[in-house]
């Protein structure tokens, strides 16, 4: 929980990095000396709070690339049905990917052309591995 100190913000003894300023009156400051504490300066008052491990280790959000087909589960590639440069329709079988005692079918998420088949037959892959890349259509 945040603890409130009644003293207005003085000259900060620690060096602070600004984490962000959601509005004019509030500022989030991360002390350089200890990455585990967060100080929130608001309207001349200062709040101190600890950060959780989960917060510090979080991965920043990245927009997913719709032209990449990724594995959803750890498993291995059994058979590949497509080649580089091949045109496919949405729902066409791209490969058989064995995981959890099942010959899973990886199918095309869209109509398009295969830019590259990134996985190889026999490979054992983790979750989130790149299987197939689609070619980005030229901008009209």
């Amino acid at each position, binding site marked *: 929980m945040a603890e409130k100190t009644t003293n207005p913000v003085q000259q900060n003894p620690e060096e602070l990095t600004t984490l962000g300023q959601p509005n004019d009156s509030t500022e989030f400051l991360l002390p350089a000396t200890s990455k585990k504490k967060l100080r929130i300066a608001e309207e001349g008052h200062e709040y101190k709070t600890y950060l959780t491990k989960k917060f510090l280790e979080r991965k*920043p959000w990245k927009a997913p690339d719709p032209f990449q087909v990724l594995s*959803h589960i750890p498993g291995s590639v059994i058979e590949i049905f497509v080649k580089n440069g091949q045109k496919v329709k949405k729902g066409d079988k791209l490969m058989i990917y064995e995981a*959890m005692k*099942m010959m899973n079918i990886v199918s095309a998420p869209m109509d398009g052309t295969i830019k590259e088949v990134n996985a190889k037959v026999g490979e054992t892959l983790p979750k989130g591995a790149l299987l197939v890349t689609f070619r980005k259509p030229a901008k009209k």
Partner: protein
Amino acid sequence: MSLLSKKISELQERTQHAQQGGGDKAIAKQIAMGKLPARERIRKLLDEGTFYEYDLFIQHDAREFGMEKKDLAGDGVVIGTGKINGQPVAVYAQDFTVAGGSLGSMHARKITKIMDYALRMRIPLIGINDSGGARIQEGVNSLAGYGEIFFRNTLNSGVIPQISVILGPCAGGAVYSPALTDYVFVVDKISKMFITGPEVIKSVLGEEIDMESLGGARVHCETTGNAHFFAESEDECFAQIKKLLSYLPANNQTKAVPGKPALPLKKYNIVKTVPADPTEPYDVRNVIRALVDNSDFFEVQEMWAKNIVIGYGRIEGRTVGFIANQPLYLAGVLDCDSSDKAARFIRYCDAFNIPIVTLEDMPGYLPGVDQEHAGVIRHGAKLLYAYSEATVPKITVILRKAYGGGYIAMNSRHLRADFVFAWPTAEIAVMGPQGAANIIFRKEIMEAEDPEAMRKKKVEEYKEKFANPYVAASKGYIDSVINPADTRQFILQSLDISQQKNSGMPKKKHGIPPF
């Protein structure tokens, strides 16, 4: 003009004035955003001519910041009662054309009034959300309004069906009313739900994201699991609501109005749908379609945690809730999200007297660091809790794989399933043949001249002995091994037998589920 007709024409004038909402300009703007005005939405949702509006002449009571001079028609929300499929419902719709549908104290009081009506009359409640959020000028009174709504959502939960329709922004604290209700409907490009918007996220964390990727309809259907039904248009959304309500009872003391009994369509052949080879995937929804009247299966949360399928169908006219592992996605494993999804649905069916049919074909819980650290123990426990606690008729059909902890969790006899049937293709065992043979025959395999050949031999041996339904049948853990073609017949007779089912739970205030 007589005095009476004068009074009546005054009423008409006042009504007309109040019903114009935010005025022509604001309504035109609403339509330009691809959205319908609030009363139009209600008109389209309800059976024709059944809507009766209340509290049309409500005035807001803010006296600060110049608000006293403002006239807000109906205080930005329309409430009333009507009928859907001929059955009574209570409804409210926030009117974005009036002060951005912002929630002030009288606005909230209208909503809580219709919520109280719905509870008293034991009829479903439908809320259409389209609001910029709290009315800042009303300060803490606005927050009080939200709190009163949340409290009633919780009070009504499990007594009457509560449905939230997100047809515009629904941000900040306002999101928690939909989250507390049973079903959330969203429409592509119109619905937006989030606690903090893209601007705050950018300024605090430096992460750049647009509104649609943060809290659009698709995100809530595919990623967060907050929403249950996705529609391309408002009309499609209203049709989905009508369809959902047709499966549900008006309250927890009754049963759903039965549909007209019908046979499944011939094109769904249950025997041909499921491959005998347990490593071959198939769409389990086609098995459900081969079991239900008219092959009409109404799926819930179709786009989230696709490795488990939940939804409604009818068997001989009676509503049944289906839960089925989906081998087409993630091999049909149980994981955090699929356990969450199924557990909540089980509790829903149990609360509203809907029998549950479970179709089982899954290799177990998904292994992996991310699952363990995401709390698969805690989430998986929800499934066990929900099945164990449910007292409605519970029927399980094991189609193929039933391994390990997953076998127990998927409404096994041990969690008090009323009927457990297995197909001859069922494999009920503590784990898959590969893993089991490696452990049990570890020494023999290691010491063999050709370990690989010995491993294969032992896997085959294990398969032969244990990967079948007869070991479990010999212990009475399953009631019958059945011909797949007779599955509907077996489910039907189980439903008939268990119509008056009465199984008591020990007296308690409430249990402590692994929330």
